[in-house]
């Protein structure tokens, strides 16, 4: 997806807004992510009809309904498989997958690994609120150990995961972390993620005021700081310095490398499979089933 030719009218953030009102609670971090997405899309001048936003299930997965592009709010955990189909079959379409931590790391965790590994041509925005919000407050894979939730009355007995650490390990070629309370920073990072060719994973800490209280927002705000200047984002080892942080929350581009995307590789296969020959027809294939001796 390239920027629109200059002859086209420029898109402004509001052009990407549908007239559907978000179902989110007042103060939800996802509003920040949505606003950042509108702005970043305008910055890139994404053509709405050549953009698809795909999600699974959860509070944040309602997002495609609010973006004036082709949109698909699918089933729980399956945003990335659906996005795979769109991205691979239509390389001319910019595909954005969105969802929450439960959707992407629990029920959809396996797909996360493989989308990253394939370097799928998809920008994946994970809105991480460390809780199941839509089902009203159960423990999630990113809920800190010890936290009390509706399903951890005695404190969460399980260690949590760091989504960025997973993404880097799985082979994502662009990994960033944002805090939705920092709109300017989030816009910048969403735009960078959208510009990346291949699988870009942005974990946006997106507080849930309803089930995690004001405390979560305050803590995140206090911890968030830009990743130190001079960070070598091409190094996995360096990137891992900024995962599993406890005292601070480093935002910015943690990891970025340039390797062929899945569509680059599939395109190369199409070319090499065919060689100089014209596209095969069914008749060509049928001939191979005739005994020839």
């Amino acid at each position, binding site marked *: 997806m390239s920027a629109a030719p200059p002859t086209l009218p420029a898109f402004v953030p509001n052009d990407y807004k549908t007239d559907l009102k978000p179902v989110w609670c007042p103060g939800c971090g996802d509003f920040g992510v949505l606003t950042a997405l509108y702005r970043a899309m305008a910055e890139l001048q994404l053509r709405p009809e050549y953009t698809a936003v795909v999600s699974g299930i959860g509070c944040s997965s309602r997002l495609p309904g609010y973006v004036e592009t082709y949109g698909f709010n699918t089933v729980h955990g399956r945003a990335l498989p659906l996005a*795979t189909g769109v991205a691979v079959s239509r390389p001319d379409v910019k595909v954005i997958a969105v969802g929450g931590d439960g959707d992407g790391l629990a029920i959809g965790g396996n797909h996360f690994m493989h989308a990253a590994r394939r370097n799928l041509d998809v920008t994946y925005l994970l809105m991480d609120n460390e809780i199941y919000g839509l089902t009203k407050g159960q423990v999630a894979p990113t809920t800190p150990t010890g936290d009390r939730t509706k399903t951890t009355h005695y404190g969460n007995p399980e260690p949590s995961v760091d989504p960025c650490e997973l993404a880097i390990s799985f082979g994502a070629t662009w990994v960033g972390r944002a805090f939705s309370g920092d709109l300017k920073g989030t816009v910048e990072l969403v735009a960078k993620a959208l510009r990346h060719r291949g699988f870009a994973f942005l974990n946006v800490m997106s507080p849930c005021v309803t089930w995690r209280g004001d405390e979560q927002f305050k803590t995140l705000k206090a911890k968030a700081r830009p990743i130190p200047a001079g960070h070598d984002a091409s190094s996995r080892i360096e990137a891992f310095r900024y995962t599993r942080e406890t005292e601070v929350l480093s935002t910015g581009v943690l990891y970025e490398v340039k390797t062929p995307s899945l569509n680059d590789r599939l395109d190369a296969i199409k070319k090499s499979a065919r060689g100089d020959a014209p596209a095969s027809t069914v008749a060509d294939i049928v001939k191979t*089933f005739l005994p020839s001796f």
Partner: protein
Amino acid sequence: MDGVTVEGGVSPAMSRRDLTIAMVGAGGDGIVTMGDILSQAGARDGLNVIKTEAYGPQIRGGESSCVVRLSPDAIYEQGDAVDVLVVFSWADFGRFKGEVLPAPGAVVLFDEADPVARTKEDLGLGASARWIAVPFAKIAGDAGAKGSKNVVGLGVLTSLLGLRQETIRRAVEKRFGRKKAAVGELALKAFEAGLAHGATLGKLEGRGIAFAPGPAKLIMSGNEAAALGALHAGCRFFAGYPITPSTEILQFAEEWLPKMGGTVVQTEDELAAIGAVVGASFAGVKSMTATSGPGLSLMTEMLGLASMAEIPCVIVDVQRGGPSTGLPTKSEQSDLWQAVFAGHGDAPRVVIAASDVEDCFHTTVEAFNISEEFQIPVVVLTDQSIGQRRETLDPARLVHPVRGRAVPTAEELADYKRYRDTPEGHSPMSVPGMKGGIYQTNGLEHDESGRPASMHLVHEKMNAKRHRKLAPIAEKFQRARRLGPAKADLGIVCWGSSKGAVKEALALAEARGEKVAAFIPEMISPFPVKALESFLASVGSVLVIEVSFAAQFAKYLRTITTLPEDTIVFKRSGGKNLSISEVDDQIRRFFSPDRKQVPA
């Protein structure tokens, strides 16, 4: 292809101008190669050929069997009465007990070197079987082609049965010489040695088949035919996860789609496979996946999404024995309920069944046509027996009309509503790239614009819209086959791969002067009820035949129509294919005077 097709049966006057050869041995004995060469040679000479293979569950080694049936006349099923049996290992033969059945008077070629001796009584062959010991391995070794006992076997068979030497020799040369000429030469030595040994055994009177070679025929499997049908239908995206016995479809797609400008993704699981298919179809590209029962179980949630979001997609289920891991390498007709009913909510879908190899092609194309026209998921049910058997086909028959992906017209895009409530139930579907067609959809209940809506009234209205598609589908695609006389004393109702055995059994009945007809639906859901009911009205008694222990088909029929009270149900577990003799036995019982005392 719409409507009830009346198919000619097998000519009852047909003398048994066919020959069924079975080979059994251990992995590494080259059983499958023998079968390949015999069937390729048959197809080359224009014979009709059906070749089936069966294995144990082992990845390498273990028992394997291959049955090749050859005839200048039309054949519809694996021969269940084996005329000539080649046994390299009695121990392995024992593992196919009840599955490879020699005919009375069968010729049994066995290796004298086999340490496990068997007797005729062991094998239930009766006194009429003719036993011929052949030192296959020794002959191969003496010819300097150690390990080529299968090629020696081919030579012996060719001599004994008077098969066309030239064609088989060329097939051997092609098969073994394709990589290294020296290997081909060695194989030819083994073949000549086998021929020479066979000549010392004398000709088997009345065992060979007399025929004049005709133009070569195609030979392919049902899985290949289904994949070919998908490509013919314009499928340009395929996602799949390997699962026996459907994997060949994924492999075929992976080889050919890139050459046609399409793409294939082998996904991490079946959830992702069907998810990617629904995604690609949402994006405007005709898409398909293929799987077997356990995979279809995982795909069920996405069948619901495709039904709800009204996205065309095709799923081929090559059935195997179940439940759970079941019998991965063997056939059964026990995914019927799953295909028709599985899933939560009221989720309309279409289920269509293929009945032979060629039908796998047509059915898959038709599945795309229905799916594209009505924006509904379509499940194609085949099974291991037709999916993996190889059968000869006339290339001229591989044609089928194709419906393209329809997109909204400019008029429809003005005031566009993705789920406009139409009299037909389906509404114009735009795809990315269409400027006026932008919409947001979901698996939530939604209104005509696609916006989430949980009001009862909207749900009722949209359920009605989605289900409205089924009536025109049922009306337009009353697809079924009718075999046998227009009026009959006995009417067999069966489905899918059972057709072959039933068709041949009908010919045997006709030769005895018994009036038997058969009804084989191609549409399983929505079911061609009118066609079934007119069939039921034309027959005296009804016999339902199926390969499902729980009698899924018979019970399903009872949800659709009223079967006569005295309906006979012949059902059994899978693990072996329905045979002509099983069906013939049921027909004979029906016409025997004391049948009331012998309930089936």
